């Protein structure tokens, strides 16, 4: 067991924070969010140049070969600086699927275009209503179905779509298809999200695809999809920890400078105790996110316990921190004059994406309610 960052990881963290502090302040965020597309090509290219877009991918596939901790470090920095570029959908979700499912050729082609910043991808997994199905035909497949809340879809050139490839009853195999967003038969209803990102509901009506559009082979991709989504949740959790840390830090600084009744707010015991609770929540959230990241490569059961546990715990920490941070700032905290509100919105989005805090408490609860699991220490769990 070793929970210390190594030198490279410390360097990564410092570079990321250094770069973003310089190039991604609140005004940058507001400008990008107000823009038509809601992302900055210049910064995206910088991310590529810094090796961030290839960070989690194998060197053989043209990536940097970073691990789950490296991804978490970067995501925490993104959360801390309100980065809205589509890193999660492009790199963690779509990129993760491609590395896991793609053939050597597919990986080479797609991972390279991601790492170099040429492609922005999205992953459409949540079915709205009926299951999306891929009917095999002479020319390949025909996709029909509806996907909701596809993060990054409006600004993606390619969207990965999960669809049932099983034939006949009992055969529920799911495949992942590489679909150009301009393919005929695709209707995209884009919308903004509270935290300034772009998402879309997607309608697929007999979208004709060549056989090679199916990522990898015919095997069921369900387990891989679950794992990749858990990776995304872990990444998003690190992002949330960054946002939580920023809110706590901003509140401490503000109360030290804001003077009422002849002394700084930070001198009032009632507020001091609130800020201690905020910091404690930050520490707990950080610890949970770390446990989730370190469990990603373990068995599915343990991974699920750690990831749902983190989502549920950090969701509660996020709620507590964003509310108290605003309250302690007073009126100014309820406006867009400070970045505070943007962090609050980011954390509210975290709570609801990929299953709510309540959903994950239930998932975690059903796992933990087995006494033998409840009794196990984390080392044993993760080891």
């Amino acid at each position, binding site marked *: 067991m070793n929970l210390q960052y190594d030198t490279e990881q410390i360097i990564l963290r410092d570079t990321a924070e250094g770069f973003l502090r310089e190039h991604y302040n609140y005004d940058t965020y507001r400008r990008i969010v107000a823009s038509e597309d809601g992302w900055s090509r210049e910064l995206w290219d910088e991310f590529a140049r810094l090796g961030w877009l290839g960070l989690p991918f194998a060197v053989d596939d043209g990536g940097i070969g970073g691990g789950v901790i490296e991804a978490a470090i970067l995501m925490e920095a993104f959360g801390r600086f309100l980065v809205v570029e589509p890193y999660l959908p492009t790199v963690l979700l779509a990129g993760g699927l491609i590395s896991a499912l793609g053939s050597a050729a597919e990986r080479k082609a797609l991972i390279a275009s991601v790492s170099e910043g040429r492609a922005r991808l999205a992953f459409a997994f949540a079915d709205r209503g009926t299951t999306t199905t891929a009917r095999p035909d002479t020319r390949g497949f025909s996709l029909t179905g509806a996907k909701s809340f596809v993060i990054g879809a409006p600004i993606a050139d390619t969207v990965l779509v999960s669809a049932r490839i099983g034939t006949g009853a009992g055969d529920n195999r799911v495949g992942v298809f590489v679909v150009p967003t301009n393919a005929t038969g695709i209707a995209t209803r884009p919308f903004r999200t509270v935290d300034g990102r772009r998402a879309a509901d997607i309608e697929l009506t007999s979208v004709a695809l060549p056989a090679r559009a199916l990522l990898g082979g015919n095997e069921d991709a369900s387990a891989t999809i679950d794992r990749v989504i858990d990776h995304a949740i872990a990444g998003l959790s690190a992002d949330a920890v960054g946002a939580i840390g920023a809110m706590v830090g901003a509140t401490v600084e503000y109360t030290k400078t804001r003077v009422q009744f002849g002394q700084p707010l930070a001198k009032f015991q009632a507020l001091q105790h609130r800020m201690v609770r905020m910091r404690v929540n930050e520490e707990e959230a950080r610890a949970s996110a770390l446990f989730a990241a370190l469990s990603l490569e373990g068995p599915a059961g343990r991974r699920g316990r750690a990831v749902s546990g983190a989502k549920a715990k950090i969701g509660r920490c996020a709620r507590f921190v964003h509310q108290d941070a605003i309250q302690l700032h007073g009126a100014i905290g309820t406006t*867009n004059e400070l970045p505070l509100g943007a962090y609050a919105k980011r954390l509210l989005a975290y709570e609801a994406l990929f299953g709510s805090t309540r959903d994950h408490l239930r998932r975690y609860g059903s796992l933990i309610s087995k006494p033998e699991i409840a009794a196990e220490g984390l080392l044993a769990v993760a080891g």
Partner: protein
Amino acid sequence: MDIGLTAQDRAFCDEVRTFLSEHVPPAMRRANDLTTGFIVEPDVSIHFHRALARKGWSVPNWPVEYGGTGWTPVQRYIFEIECGRAGAAPYNGAGTQFVGPVLMRFGTQQQKDTYLPRIRSGEDHWAQGYSEPGSGSDLASLKTKADSDGDDYVVNGQKIWTTMAHRSNRIFALVRTSNVGKRQEGITFLLIDLDLSGITIRPIIGNGGDHEFNEVFFDNVRVPKAGRVGEENKGWEVAKYLLEFERGGTMMAGRVRAQFAKLARMIAARCPGDPDILVRLAEVGTDIDSMEMIDLSVLSAHQAGSNPGPISSLLKLRWSEIRQAVTELAVDASGEDALRWVNERPLYETLQLPPEDEETLALMPRYLNGRAFTIMGGTTEIQTNILAKTLVNL
């Protein structure tokens, strides 16, 4: 003891319902349902206010001689509940609840004659100029200064958090007329026309995306001394009198019940079976019941001519938290859909979706704006400090 309604009360209730059914058209109801800020735009609520004025109901809390209704506390309570239920949008509480009572208590005959009728009719829309960037909870530290110059005060400085200033034609403000002695003793209460030269208004956008707050800058604004309420340097007394009204003096039950009913409807439609949502709905419901019961005890004490005691801070404290709980549960009950966002305001002018989708888009902005409930009009921390002295005698 009894908690029932008399025959007259019930008759009155019917009269109010009839009136509301005639004067709260669907458009106003929709505007009310889709308003994400604290206040429905005056250009919507003015119509209701005028209807009230025609009926003689536009200033129910005023004494009869000033155009009040002479209702019993119970009747005023019924009116609040029914207005909430009907989705009626109140117009400019700052005028009817603050300026009016203040002028009756401290105003000159001329001020009463000038302003009260225009508040009753809705001709005037008032804004409140209290807080300043450096003076929030610690109001007495305010700096905006008014220098005497002949028949005028020359006002320089800056006010902030002036709700709806951009929709108002007048503002009442606390200004500093002296720096000697206790800070409270150098403050004067001024009525100012917002069209005077030297006044500029800068919008402040809330996290919910709404423009309700403003900064108001005063640059050598000449304000006639006729606009002074009470004596020079005695404005703090006026302000304290007014704050009493702000701190939950108004009955919240009506508005909150309306929001709560909307929440119940939404949950019944969206996640009827969800156990913890139901439990949380019940928690909020019991909170509302107990607070409404406290409201009624205050009414009853008033009716019996006895003083309800230091309860107004308690009402502000808890009603503001309960209103937040309603907006919070609404967001939680809508899951991912609550994250969908539209920039334009007001929603009722931009949206053309199925009603439930439109209301879903209002939930998150309402939650975000609602964080101000526990800050505006005396923060929860200030109310708690007050209650430590007045209620717990610490």
